[in-house]
């Protein structure tokens, strides 16, 4: 009998891993089980062009259906996995079907954290992860009135930009004292605060939500301060939590997500994990990271797929992220946590600049705003674990290209 690989999840990491397994010569069966009824698709446009109606669903799919047939990838969509039996090497679906595997990949992603305050279950309080979520939110953009957005992270700010474009009144509530606090430095936060204020967003920093009000349907958000903000819709973007329930129940090691080694393998030698749900040791940062990003999903899944096909590949990619808001593109390379020095290059008022984060003279991360050259170059420098002289970096006359030897 031929070998069988099962992939739990049908997102970006799942699709990439299946493809990478085939590219590495895996000839056995591949079964991909996804909860959603959609072919694997890209999620980033769901808060941007797809939400705005500029991009149709057919343009979200990563590959056409024919690709999976041609590659003999058996897609089981609209099916939920109930449990993994790691000892018996089987997966059981909620419909009661049990499938055995030789190799298993967990690529279950990270669904949005949900609020549990009063009124959180009112109609019109929405989250954004899937095509269905974006489809459900879109009518609110054309209905007019005010949308309250809870959380000023990537999702919250991208939806704020989309909603302003659609002509909605927008209030953004953020508990922290700055936007993008988890993912970007202070200069970048200040830039995005001004950008959204200039576009007419009512941005509330240090604002804590208490509850929602409404008769069946949400009609107001009430802050802890007592202030009441009338609204027609709510979008909650307060981060995501890795989907670890299946792994946990199967007694796999958990460490802020499904624990993997530097080969994307979990604590069970027949099980791998990749994407938003998995944490991995980063050789570059010398600590464990769990990243919520498309590039991480793709690169880690390439490693998992190659290793599931019998390879010996270490996951050592430089993390990167991007966000499009209005006419501004943010590209982030690396992880800035632990930085002891920052250098600003360029001019935030000109909407083109980059912020470089150093730790003891080593380049940790760069936020590049409309500055793809800084992005591309810093990716190379970080991959090379390069030391960078802050004085040279801070000199506007320094040609960035001269930093790459």
């Amino acid at each position, binding site marked *: 009998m031929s070998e069988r690989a099962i992939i739990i999840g049908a997102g970006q990491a799942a699709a990439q891993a299946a493809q990478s397994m085939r590219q590495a010569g895996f000839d056995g069966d591949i079964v991909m089980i996804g909860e959603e009824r959609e072919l694997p698709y*890209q999620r*980033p*446009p769901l808060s941007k062009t797809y939400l705005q109606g500029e991009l149709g669903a057919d*343009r979200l799919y*990563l*590959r*056409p259906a*024919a*690709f999976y047939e*041609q590659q003999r990838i058996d897609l089981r969509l609209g099916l939920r996995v109930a449990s993994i039996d790691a000892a018996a090497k089987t997966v059981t679906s909620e419909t009661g079907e049990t499938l055995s595997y030789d190799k298993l990949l967990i690529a279950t992603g990270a669904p949005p954290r949900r609020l549990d305050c009063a009124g959180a279950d009112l109609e019109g309080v929405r989250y954004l992860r899937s095509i269905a979520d974006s489809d459900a939110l879109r009518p609110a953009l054309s209905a007019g009135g005010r949308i309250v957005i809870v959380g000023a992270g990537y999702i919250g700010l991208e939806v704020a930009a989309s909603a302003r474009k659609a002509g909605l009144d927008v209030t953004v509530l953020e508990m922290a004292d700055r936007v993008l606090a988890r993912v970007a430095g202070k200069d970048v936060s200040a830039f995005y605060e001004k950008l959204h204020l200039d576009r007419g967003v009512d941005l509330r920093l240090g604002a804590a939500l208490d509850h929602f009000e409404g008769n069946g349907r949400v009609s107001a958000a009430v802050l802890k301060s007592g202030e009441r903000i009338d609204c027609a819709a709510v979008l909650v973007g307060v981060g995501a939590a890795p989907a670890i329930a299946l792994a946990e129940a199967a007694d796999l090691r958990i460490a802020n997500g499904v624990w993997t080694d530097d080969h994307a393998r979990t604590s069970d030698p027949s099980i791998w994990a990749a994407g938003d749900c998995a944490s991995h040791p980063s050789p570059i940062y010398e600590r464990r990271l769990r990243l919520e990003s*498309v*590039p991480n999903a*793709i690169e880690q899944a390439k490693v998992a797929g190659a290793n599931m096909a019998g390879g010996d590949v270490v996951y050592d990619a430089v993390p990167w992220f*991007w966000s*499009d808001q209005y006419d501004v*593109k943010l*590209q982030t390379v690396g992880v800035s946590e632990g930085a002891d020095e920052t250098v600003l290059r360029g001019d935030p008022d000109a909407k083109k600049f980059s912020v470089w984060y150093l730790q003891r003279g080593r380049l940790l991360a760069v936020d590049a705003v*409309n*500055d*793809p*050259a800084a992005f*591309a*170059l810093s990716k*190379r420098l970080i991959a090379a674990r390069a030391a960078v002289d802050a004085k040279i970096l801070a000199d506007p006359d320094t040609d960035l290209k001269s930093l790459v030897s």
Partner: protein
Amino acid sequence: MPKITYIEHNGAEHVVDAEKGVSVMEAAVKNMIPGIDADCGGACACATCHVYVDPAWMEKVGKPETMEESMLDFAYEPKENSRLSCQITVSDALDGLIVRLPEFQG
């Protein structure tokens, strides 16, 4: 539908019927052309859909905008005729377009 020819680095040719309005990158992905990764899905954020436009087509395809130009600067072996295929929209005017793929992406 406009026809687009993709020529892999090893010389393998693929002619596809591309839908008008999609990008040259999307037409490649839909038709399973190897050698175009398009990690960011067409957001002009990653430079992994780099192509060389056939010199005869350069004028019709046009020049990259500033963002794309900077991305291309750091692509693998950029040339005068480099473009990111996610930024080229398929149209009747591009019927017959020929693009060549680099040895590596990213």
